[in-house]
């Protein structure tokens, strides 16, 4: 009987530990997946901005909509227990300044929504899209580890 209890206890403890670790790495995997999607949505627009692809408002609008929804979702994907425990480039500084960090997501969403209304042709794309992308760099410079 005692042995059974002990085994159950150990199993339960292990299960809690594993699911905890899973939750952390799940948040990490989820946010990386979303950010990768943000990057993929940006690629065709980046080509337009560099003049390598013709203007296509559908792609620009899709990127902006992706930013707005991703920004809202991402705010919840940096829980305190996801500093480590997976392959993450998120810097620990995020959790010292969580409000400042989240504010950049808010600004990204607001700028993306504003730009969506303003972009109608190539000229308005070039005039308005850069400002939105400035938020990516503003956050990455401070809160994301550089590979190189």
């Amino acid at each position: 009987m005692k042995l059974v209890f002990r085994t159950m206890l150990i199993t339960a403890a292990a299960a809690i530990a594993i699911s905890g670790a899973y939750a952390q790495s799940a948040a990490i995997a989820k946010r990386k997946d979303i950010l990768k999607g943000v990057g993929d949505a940006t690629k065709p627009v980046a080509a337009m901005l560099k003049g390598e692809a013709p203007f296509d408002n559908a792609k620009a609008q899709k990127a902006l909509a992706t930013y707005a929804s991703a920004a809202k979702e991402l705010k919840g994907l940096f829980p305190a227990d996801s500093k480590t425990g997976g392959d993450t480039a998120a810097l620990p500084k995020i959790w010292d300044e969580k409000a400042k960090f989240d504010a950049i997501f808010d600004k990204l969403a607001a700028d993306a929504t504003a730009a969506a209304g303003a972009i109608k042709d190539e000229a308005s794309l070039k005039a308005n899209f850069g400002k939105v992308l400035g938020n990516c760099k503003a956050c990455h410079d401070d809160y994301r580890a550089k590979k190189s």
Partner: protein
Amino acid sequence: MNAPVEKPSASAAGARTLAWDGPTRLFKWSLVLLVFDGWLSNTVGGAYPAWHKWNGYLALTLILFRVLWGFVGGSTARFTNFIALPGRAFAYLRATLAGRPQKYLGHNPLGGWMVMALLGLVGLQAVSGLFAADEDRLVIDGPFVKFVSDATVSFAAKWHHRIFDAIEILVLLHVAANLFATFVKREPLIQGMATGYKPVEPYADEARARPGSWAAAAVCLAIAAAVVFGGILAAGGRL
């Protein structure tokens, strides 16, 4: 209070002599602005990649100009007049530490090496930028990125960051040395680089600089710009 009496004759105390010609000074202060703007355009200009890139092309053009000017410019700007053998640089360092350095109209033997290091690093900074891009390859990339491998781009970006760290350190040293000389040793080096003139002194290199001509400077600048912009376009890169 008596106003200081200005002596009309060129007494040894007030007399000044040419140290740096106009093109050299214009180059120098332009480079200061461009290096600062290179930092600024990256820090607050993330939304405007063209700002950073054009600033970098201009910096590269100026560095190339300075290399040419080092052969045909004013006497104090010529490499042959300020690149000292290491032995002389060390002797100058020893004399400085002992508190009795010789005075130079142009660069002193240590300062000359600082100038070469700064020119070299800013040049490398600009060249590495031509091959660098942001990590996600989305916002900013140099004109040669599309011709090289992804690993080369990462390598260039890594060095573009590191070289700038080195530039920051050298700039700090360079500025500190000049502030020290100007305000502690009372040798007006900063005023000299601003106005072109320094007090008459028994300088170790020469008594008076022979200025380079503005026409020669214009030719050097035109060649430098043609190499940078022509080179990028001829290679098929987009500015």
